[in-house]
């Protein structure tokens, strides 16, 4: 969805920023937003450090929205992994370059 939305709207994005905290996504406030996503998958206690970064660059509303997106995917990840929802064959084919370059083929469900 990240590549699709960027390509469809003429925006440049470096996908490596999804897995490399040092990489620049080329999106506005990309480092802060990626930090929010990264923290969201690991957070075990209240910690507003990442969304405060988002707030400092994009405002409080964007900080709340970033937290909401992270929360949604904490649930979505659990549901799709819980039912073993397969990636479509077309998506695997179309995204084969991303899957390999980001190392997604090493994820536990990649062989499904």
């Amino acid at each position: 969805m990240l590549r699709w939305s960027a390509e469809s709207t003429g925006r440049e994005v470096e996908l490596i920023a999804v897995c490399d905290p040092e990489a620049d996504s080329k999106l506005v406030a990309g480092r802060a937003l990626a930090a929010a996503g990264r923290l969201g998958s690991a957070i075990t206690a209240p910690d507003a450090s990442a969304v405060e970064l988002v707030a400092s660059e994009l405002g409080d509303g964007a900080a709340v929205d970033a937290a909401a997106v992270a929360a949604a995917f904490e649930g979505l990840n659990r549901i799709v992994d819980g039912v073993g929802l397969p990636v479509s064959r077309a998506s695997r084919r179309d995204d084969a370059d991303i899957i390999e370059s980001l190392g997604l083929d090493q994820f536990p469900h990649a062989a499904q």
Partner: protein
Amino acid sequence: MSALASHGFPIRADIAARLTDTWEAFGRPGTWYTAEERLGFAELARSVRSGLEVEVNDAASAVVVRIAGRPATTTRSWVDEMVEALAEEQYVELMGISARVVMGDTFLRLLGLEPMPFPEPQAGQPSRIRVEPRPKKVRSWIAVGPTLVPPFTQVLVPDENAITYPLIETLYMTGHDMQDPNFRRGDLHRTQIELVASTLSYGNECFY
């Protein structure tokens, strides 16, 4: 709901309302579990996602622990084993409870807030309503349908889907909005939204 009203970030009214509804539902009888049981599973999911080590010795609790704690470690053989012990419908209800607790708690923690307390249990028995005709498993481990996409992952327990998916749509975006690569949520462009989603999913090793 005091947690949503006593901090510095302006939580959208639709999120506050949806979280309130979602939390209240933990305290009502579900399709296969009583309110007391659902609240027990919700507390367990919270403990696991908080990083606490827990030992469980029943299949229902094992589902909650795995889904809340390490969802990427689910396998077909493990799911088959749990379904053998519980039935698919119970598995789906437990999965939904676990996912919703994690969503709500993650949202608040990222804003620097403590998770919301769970409600008191309401009396009553589970509805035990089965979906007929039963969806068939095609390529997934649990029956979903009619297509292999997230909005249909809990079709075996419609009351669960009716709580879980609206929460996801409120926090992320609706199915209609998903068709728009130029969608904006306030000051966030779709690409920025997807960067958060992709980074988080990478951290969870979620291949989907």
